[in-house]
Structure formats: structure tokens, C-alpha cells
């Protein structure tokens, strides 16, 4: 059987990779992708806790995370298209003035 410690370590490592992606990338697409990786890391730990405790609550949380990820991607990608139409770049550092 799988040791729960290894699953938690795997999840933490995946989460750190996601944080690294958000920190270093300046392209909005890659930042959204890194957020997806972080959400997946959290989902792994929820499902692992669900099967560790033998209850289905963790998997229900996984379903909610899935819903959240779908909505977040829809809104994020439409913001990205909007930004590309106005600025013709995806560099988030270009969005430094609030005049719009």
C-alpha cells in the first residue's frame, strides 16, 4: 500500500512547482497553467485524505475544486483574450497603469 507521507510529499512538491511557475513566468497563459498545477496538488491531497479516512468527504471537495478550476479558467482565459485585444501582448508587467 502507498505510504500517506509519500502522497503528501508529492503534493507539496507539485504545489511548490506551481508556486515557482507563478513567480517566474510573466506570460498570463503560463501563470494560469501554474495555478492549475497548484489546484491539482491540493486535489491530490484531498483525495488521498478521503481514502485514508475511508469517508467520501474529500472526494466531494475534489468535485468542488474541479468546479472552481473550470470557472477560474473560463474567466481567466476571457480576461486574457481581452488583454491581448487591447495590448497585443501577454506580458503582465505591461499592465502597470490603472487608466485602462
Amino acid at each position, binding site marked *: 500500500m502507498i505510504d500517506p507521507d*509519500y502522497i503528501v*510529499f508529492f503534493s507539496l512538491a507539485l504545489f511548490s512547482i506551481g508556486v515557482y511557475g507563478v*513567480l517566474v513566468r510573466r*506570460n498570463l497563459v503560463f501563470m494560469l497553467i501554474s495555478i492549475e498545477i497548484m489546484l491539482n496538488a491540493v*486535489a491530490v491531497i484531498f*483525495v488521498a485524505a478521503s481514502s485514508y479516512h475511508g469517508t467520501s468527504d474529500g472526494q466531494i471537495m475534489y468535485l468542488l475544486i474541479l*468546479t472552481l478550476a473550470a470557472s*477560474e479558467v473560463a474567466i481567466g482565459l476571457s480576461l486574457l483574450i481581452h488583454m491581448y485585444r487591447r495590448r497585443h501582448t501577454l506580458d503582465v508587467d505591461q499592465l502597470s497603469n490603472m487608466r485602462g
Partner: protein
Amino acid sequence: MIGFLFFLSSTVALISALLTVTRHNAVHALLYLVITMMAIAMIFFLLGAAFAAALQIIVYAGAIMVLFVFVTMMLHQGEVTMKQEALLYQAKQSSTAIILCVLLLLELVYMLSSFSTAQTIMTPINVNELGAQLYGPYLLLVELSALLLLSALVGAFHIGRRHQEQDRQL
């Protein structure tokens, strides 16, 4: 055997996640991300959560990735985009972020190592129980997530709509 499969799939997931956040080409990054999702689905199967694994493949590797790929197709302009992206992200300049992330990981691992889990019992959850829970005590959450999806749909439509007068200003 299950332990070996877990190590294999988690190694695949970590390596492909690292490749995802370091690629310059968005399409390559998305394909690596699909591999990550598949490996995580494999881990869900090994944990006895077959329904979660199926959802991971259908929703993440299917639907969400299709969204990303379509947007990338709209915005990707071949060599120009590649050159811009090579200017935006250079691996040499990201050493500070690497240090910060390794520190975060070490701290989390240290926090984890202070208590140990003795038993390794993993019980598979069947879909029957999940559905009974979902439409019993968690009914309000199902309604709320339906509202969330609806508002995301309306918001995405509103933001992504082309405004004629704003385009003329540019």
C-alpha cells in the same frame, strides 16, 4: 506493486510539471500539462478513487485543456510569440524564485516530518456512497457550484465580448 506504480506516476507527474512551467512554447507546455493530469489520474486510481480519476481525465485533461488549446491557437503567432516569450522568461534569472520555492518545500516537509502516520490503510470509496453524500448532506454545495458555474459563464461571455467603441479608441 502499487507502491512502485505510485512512484513511477508521481515521478512522471513531477517531471512533466517542471517541464510545463519552463517551456517557451505554450503548446508544448500544454501537452506536458496533459501528461501531468494523466499521471495524477493514475495516482487517483491507485488511491482507490476511480470516479475522481475518471473526472480528472474527462474534465481536466479533456475540457479545460481544450479551452487552453483553443485560446493558444487564437493568440499564438509562431516565431514572433516564441521570441517574445524567450525574452520574458530566462531560466538564468529565476534563481531567486528557485531558492524561495525550495525553502517553501523544505519548510513544508519539515512540518510534515514532525508527526508520523502509523497505519497505511487505504479504503476505496465507491460512487454509490459519493452520490448519496452529494445529494444528501451536501445538496446546498451542489446548488452553489451550479450558481458558480453559471456566473462564470455569464462573466466569461461579458468579458470576452468584443466592444466596438473600445476597439476604435485603439
